[in-house]
Structures are given as structure tokens and as C-alpha cells.
């Protein structure tokens, strides 16, 4: 069994080749990319210790992204389900509408520091694309967003936003026309332009440095949550932290400060989309987008196609860090179907004022399954990591309405 180290940030628990637990991650990339990612690693290691940079990051998080996101109890849902107390960490309240705002902003800041004028990123649901486009505009960088043509059509509100922010949307029409192809094409763009372009990978995937930057940035969520919990409860109560898993960026941010806790004290639960669920369906380890990870493949090792109503979850791979957390037994992973996510959205929006996007609706589904089985003293916290407006059309198609 793989063991986690205590008191060492999760992202730093890799060996010199970038492997976590001797098994996940690495740097499976073309020679052309080696020097640029090595330079980026050096820059990042310098910046994360640099007070001035951290101050700048905090300034942007506070004033540009709107500061701390709310943490509150869902009284109606708690009463309705009649078990555990249900709390919401409403990350969707951030300017930018999703946790992607954190690493989009950090990537733009790093790009600025590197002296590069161009930034390129991939997006599935459009949340990372939109936030990267915004950050690039703010920091005067030229931005390209790679997006599958299927996602361009199903996440149209975000595409419009990206274009309005002045970024170029590069449609990717190969393969399944979704996130997996967008990431591949964005990496190709980087291989061809790494001398003047910063690559901002939209999830906690890719070669070692990219997942480190991502998880480091989103960890803002758990830093806030820890304080908010202590303020509410006077201590860290017995918790279950439920988070949706696509590429895994929001969960890593939501869990980061709690990794060292015993799992009986703080349980970490990841929820994948049922037909894009490498972590919860015993997928094999495969190399995808530069890293070894749990990934859906066919017998020959070709990357498998996935199916999810949610563009952000429609990805065959998973973060190497989640493979690490799974094999060490620190986190457990389950999944929810499109139907279950839709039902969760229906119930949540009937009882509460939040409007989750399809991605966190999967996490809410697990919360609804779990809460009635637990005691009142148990605390469930769900990361409501994305706003629902982008899925309005899909919700109307599937449910016949979108709540006010």
C-alpha cells in the first residue's frame, strides 16, 4: 500500500522523476517540452516562496476574485434528509463562477512573471477557459482557449464569455470532440510554441509541474474552509468532504488542508460521472497527457471514449494525485449517473437558494445518498464548485425548467 507523508504538502510528495507513490504522474512528454517545463518548475518553486508574489496572488484572490467564498448550512436540505448536517462551501460565488478562477489567475500571474506574452489553455465546461480569458485580459496577455466542438455547442454561454473577453476559441474537431481532445490539441500547440507561450493546463493533470500549479492554486478553498469551520464549530468537527471529480482540480483544493487528518476524522469522498469514472470503476493505470494515472482505455491501450452530460467530467483520465490518494486509502471514490445528478439538482434547487452546475450536482447526489444514513452530529460539506447558468439549456432540456 502506498503511504502518504505527513506534514509534506501533497503536491510535493513526488520523487525526482515526478512520480507519486512510485506509480502516478511523471513527465511523459516530447523532448521539445522538457526545457520549458523545467524552466517553469524552477520559476514556480521560486515564486511559491516569494513573499511579494504571494502577496500579489492574495491581492488578486481578494480584490479581483472577490475574496473568501461563503460557507453555510443548508437548513432545509438537512431537515428534509433527516440525517447529517449538510453544509455548503459555495465556491461558485467567486467572481468567475467556479474554482477554476484560482488556477487561471495564478497561471496568468506566472505567465507574466515568465515574461511570456501568450497563454494557452484547454477547457471542457468552459469554466477554465472563461477564467483564463478574463485573467489574460486583466494582465494583458494574448490568450487561446482550446475546446472540443461538442463542448463549444453544449456550453455556449461560456464560449460567448471567452470570446467577449478577447480570447481566441480554437475549436477541436478530432476524436470525441470533448475535453480529452482539447487537452491534446492544446499540448500540441504548446510543443509548437513553447518558446513564447505559457501552457495553462485546466485540471490537475499533465506533466508534474502542471498538476502542481493547479492544486497549489485551488488549495485556497480549503485554507478558507478550515478557518470557517473553526469559526462555526470551534474546532474541526467529524467531517465528510464531498467533491465532484473530473480532472480533479476542485477536490484537491477542497481537501488539501485536511490530508493529514485521520480519515475517521475527515473523510474525503470523490464523486465521478458514472461513464467517465476511472477512479471508482477499477480502471487500469495508463499514460495520458504526460502522466501515469487511472484512465479508461480499451484492451489495446487506446484511450476510451466517455459519456457524461457534464462537459467538465467527460474525461477518461484522472489526476495522478487522485490515484495517489486512492491507493493510499486516504480518499474514496464513487460515481453518480446523469440521472442522479439531475435529480440532485432538482431537489437542491427546490429546497435551497443555490444553483449548482452539472459538475457539482454529482457531488450533491452523493450527499443526498449519504446524509440520511448518518447522525446529526456528522457534518457533510459539499464543494459547490460551479454555477449552473452555463447548463441552463441542458437543465431545461432534461427537466423542463430552470429555477429562478
Amino acid at each position, binding site marked *: 500500500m502506498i503511504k502518504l507523508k505527513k506534514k509534506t504538502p501533497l503536491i510535493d510528495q513526488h520523487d525526482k*522523476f515526478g512520480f507519486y507513490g512510485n506509480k502516478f504522474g*511523471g*513527465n*511523459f*512528454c*516530447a*523532448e*521539445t*517540452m*522538457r*526545457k*520549458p517545463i523545467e524552466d517553469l518548475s524552477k520559476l514556480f518553486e521560486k515564486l511559491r516562496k516569494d513573499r511579494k508574489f504571494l502577496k500579489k496572488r492574495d491581492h488578486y484572490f481578494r480584490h479581483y476574485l472577490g475574496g473568501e467564498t461563503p460557507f453555510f448550512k443548508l437548513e432545509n436540505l438537512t431537515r428534509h434528509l433527516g440525517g447529517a448536517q449538510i453544509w455548503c462551501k459555495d465556491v461558485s460565488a467567486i467572481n468567475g463562477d467556479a474554482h477554476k478562477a484560482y488556477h487561471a489567475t495564478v497561471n496568468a500571474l506566472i505567465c507574466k512573471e515568465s515574461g511570456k506574452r501568450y497563454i494557452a489553455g484547454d477547457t471542457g465546461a468552459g469554466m477554465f477557459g472563461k477564467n483564463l480569458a478574463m485573467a489574460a485580459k486583466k494582465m494583458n496577455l494574448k490568450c487561446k482557449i482550446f475546446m472540443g466542438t461538442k463542448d463549444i455547442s453544449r456550453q455556449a454561454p461560456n464560449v460567448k464569455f471567452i470570446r467577449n473577453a478577447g480570447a481566441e476559441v480554437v475549436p477541436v474537431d*478530432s*476524436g470525441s470532440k470533448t475535453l*480529452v481532445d482539447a487537452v*491534446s490539441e492544446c*499540448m*500540441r500547440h504548446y*510543443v*509548437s*510554441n*513553447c*518558446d513564447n507561450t505559457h501552457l495553462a493546463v485546466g485540471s490537475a493533470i499533465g506533466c508534474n509541474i502542471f498538476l502542481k500549479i493547479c492544486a497549489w492554486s485551488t488549495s485556497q478553498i480549503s485554507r478558507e474552509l478550515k478557518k470557517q469551520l473553526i469559526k462555526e464549530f470551534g474546532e474541526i468537527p467529524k467531517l465528510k468532504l464531498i467533491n465532484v471529480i473530473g480532472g480533479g482540480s476542485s477536490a484537491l483544493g477542497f481537501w488539501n488542508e485536511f490530508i493529514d487528518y485521520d480519515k475517521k476524522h475527515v473523510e474525503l469522498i470523490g464523486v465521478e460521472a458514472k461513464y467517465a469514472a476511472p477512479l471508482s470503476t477499477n480502471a*487500469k493505470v*495508463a*499514460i*495520458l*497527457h*504526460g502522466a*501515469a494515472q487511472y484512465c479508461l*482505455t480499451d484492451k*489495446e*491501450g*487506446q*484511450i476510451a471514449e466517455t459519456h457524461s452530460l457534464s462537459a467538465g467530467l467527460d474525461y477518461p483520465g484522472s489526476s495522478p494525485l487522485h490515484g495517489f490518494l486512492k491507493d493510499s486509502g486516504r480518499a474514496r471514490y464513487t460515481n453518480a449517473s446523469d440521472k442522479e445528478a439531475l435529480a440532485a439538482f432538482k431537489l437542491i434547487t427546490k429546497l435551497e437558494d443555490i444553483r449548482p452546475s452539472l459538475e457539482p450536482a454529482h457531488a450533491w447526489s452523493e450527499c443526498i445518498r449519504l446524509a440520511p444514513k448518518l447522525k446529526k452530529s456528522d457534518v457533510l460539506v459539499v464543494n459547490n464548485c460551479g454555477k449552473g447558468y452555463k447548463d441552463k439549456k441542458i437543465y431545461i432540456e432534461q427537466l423542463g425548467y430552470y429555477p429562478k
Partner: protein
Amino acid sequence: MKNSINNAFKIAKKENRPALISYTVCGDNTKDKSLQILNSISKDLDIAEWGIPHNCPTADGKDIQNSSYRALQNGIRLNDIFNLVKKFKKTKLSKPIILMGYYQMIFNYGEKKFIQKCKASGVDGLIVVDLSFPDNKNFAKLCKKNSICFVQLIAPTTTVKRMKEIIKSSHEMIYMISTISTTGSALKYSIKRIIKNYNVIKKIKPSKNVVIGFGITKKTISNLRSADGLVVGSAICREITRSLKDGQNPVINVSKLVRILKNKII
């Protein structure tokens, strides 16, 4: 240890020309056709590279992506590739063959089993696009043990310090990527700059055979003829695409193209 790849370079050197190396995708557009193409162009080649198709090829441009897609559509599997290599090696005019692919395909098959199969079917060399130095040290050793040449890559972004390390651990052939790009884009640098990069590598260890690839076409090939070898890939894949689109026989068209390429470097 057999020295088929070294010999191929020696022959070309004797004729005072660079070795001509083709890249096609095994199984493009069908298993039989890809073998027919290779059989037909073999007489003009010094070394043949055969791509193992993968559906997430992050370092390939559109042309090779199309070829890989066609091959996968027609059901090519790794075991088919080994069988086709065996058949190719049995033909009279066969040349040393290098398989080129992404590490996932090898990882999924199992490193040891993969190398054994390579050896048994007559594969002379391997290029693994996304298994770069120093992560490839063990794999390269395993290749050497089995008399397979592991081809290291050097890019325009590779520092001289790193270059020296790569060359030190390299076998008889080194692949120099001409320009910062995926496969098949136009050359971004001047010929002069590419040759200059090439000379830096050669100077470190003159005895290594260094080939230049990426962006080499009918138009650019003769300008680079001072190299030990030149790889033409995307231009050939593009010709296959064009032939299929126009309802022509890719075997004939690709053979013509390779003959032209050869004539440009004689």
C-alpha cells in the same frame, strides 16, 4: 550485437549522401496496404520507421494524426504490427526497421513482453516520443540488452549540458528535431540555423549517426543533405491522404514521392 542500423549509415556514407529514412504509420490505411507501401519504397530507403498508432498523439501534427486515425479505424493492433514487421523483414529488399510510438502503447503491452516481441519479429530500433531522458534510462538499457537501438531525441530547446548527457547514453542513432513544433509543420528556422544545431550535436560525439526530422519535404530535403540521415514522415502521410481522397493508389504515389526524395539527395 547486430549492427544493421550502423551498416545502413555506412552504406549511405560510402555513397556520399545522407541516409533516407521514411516514416509511415503501420496499418495506414489498411494492414496490407501499409506493408505494400513499405515493400515498394524499401529499395529507395536506408531505414524505415513505422509508427504505432495511438489515439492521443500529443506530439503529432494533422497529417500523422490522420494516418493514425485511418489505421485505428481499420483495426490495427500491436500484435498485427509485429506480424507485419516479420513479413517485411522476410522480403529481399527489406531495410532496418524502427518502430516509433507513444509510451502508453508499450506500457499497456508490458515493457519486457514488448521488447521480446520486437526482437522476435526483427525490429531494429525504437523511438518512444514521450519517454525522454533521463526517464528512459532503464528502458534504453533493456533495449540494448536485446540488441535493439533505442533512439534518443534532441530538440532545439535541449540545452548543451543536457545534450551531452543524452548523447552519452545514446545508442548508434540520434534523432534531431529540426524545429520547435509537432510533426509536419513547416520549418520555422532557416536551414543555416538547423545545420548549426546539427553541428553542435555532431561535435560532441562525431561517431554518432545524427538524423534530422520534422518538416522535411521535397522542397527542403536537398538543403539538408550534409546530415547523416533525413527523416520524411508527414509529407509521405500527406501523400497517402491525398491519394485516397483522389481515388488513386497510395502505393504508386508514395513510391514516386520517395524516389523523388532519393534523387534529391544522391
